[in-house]
């Protein structure tokens, strides 16, 4: 057994590794068929390299990001790597997270992805899942929901975001080379981002 944050990270890793074939299959439709393989390789390395006994949430997230950066291999490496590293900065030094820390983490992760990928919402990327998830989480928290309710709603919003990516054309990444032929397919990155959100939700449910 590791610390809570290690447990949370390992649940994310397991979720990604369990969905390796599924993510690769989605990427085969509109990309270079490596998203699941790359993400599984990265998160396998995370399981091995992230310290199990550290309570420092910021440091664990940063180490997760650094590991993804050096092991994923595809575009999702710098994107998720930067997302986790920026998320780590947002909660630097904390050993315990509250419901109110979640927006800070998501906000930093999204800003990191935007900086690295130079993408905006509506371009058929992971942002189409993460931005609605953050907005929904904030609204729920402001209207008095607790962490569990807010995470449920955020994950539902992320799922809706994945569905939305089926209706739009990709303008970033390999899928953009396909133009209109990318319409009708869901984005693999939005899908993996949602799997990560759902793994955290399920971890928090216990």
């Amino acid at each position, binding site marked *: 057994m590791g610390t809570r944050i290690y447990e949370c990270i390992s649940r994310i890793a397991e979720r990604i590794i369990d969905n390796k074939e599924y993510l690769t299959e989605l990427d085969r439709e509109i990309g270079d068929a*490596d998203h699941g393989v*790359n993400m599984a390789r990265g998160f396998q390395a995370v399981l091995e390299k992230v310290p199990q006994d550290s309570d420092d949430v910021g440091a664990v997230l940063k180490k997760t990001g650094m590991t993804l*950066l*050096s*092991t*994923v*291999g*595809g*575009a999702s*490496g*710098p*994107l998720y*790597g*930067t997302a986790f590293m920026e998320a780590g900065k947002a909660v630097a030094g904390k050993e315990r997270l509250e419901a109110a820390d979640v927006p800070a983490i998501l906000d930093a992760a999204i800003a990191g992805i935007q900086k*690295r*990928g130079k993408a905006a919402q509506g371009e058929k990327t992971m942002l189409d899942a993460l931005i609605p998830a953050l907005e929904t989480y904030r609204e729920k928290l402001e209207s008095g929901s607790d962490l569990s309710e807010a995470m449920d709603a955020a994950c539902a919003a992320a799922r809706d975001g994945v569905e939305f990516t089926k209706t739009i054309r990709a303008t970033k*990444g*390999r899928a953009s080379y396909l133009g209109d032929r990318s319409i009708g397919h869901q984005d693999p990155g939005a899908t993996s981002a949602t799997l990560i959100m759902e793994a955290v939700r399920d971890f928090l449910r216990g």
Partner: protein
Amino acid sequence: MVIVSHSSKIAEGVCELALQMASDYEKMIPAGGLEDGSLGTDPMRILDALRSANDGDGVAVLVDLGSGIMSAEAAIELLDGEFPAKIADAPLVEGAVVAVIEASTGASLEEVIQAAESARGEEKL
């Protein structure tokens, strides 16, 4: 100068081709593929290449597709200002050839970047 590609063969081949023009230039370093030889880009490998390529004046970087750019940007951020490094907005092969000629004359980082980027508008036919 660092040549970033998803493929180690492309990165090494571009270096080989460009160095025909400046065979005594020693600071042209390929950073292609992943550690296990598979296709992809790895910011840590690029970071190592940047350090090997630095001659004190900074390093020009040429890149291929999509994640090559992002991985190179991530590597430059990881340098955290140790020395200047800059990505040229240039075609990989043509840019590398012009840039290495410039670099081998002892030109500054900015001059090398400009030389690489001058290859961008060249028509082939």
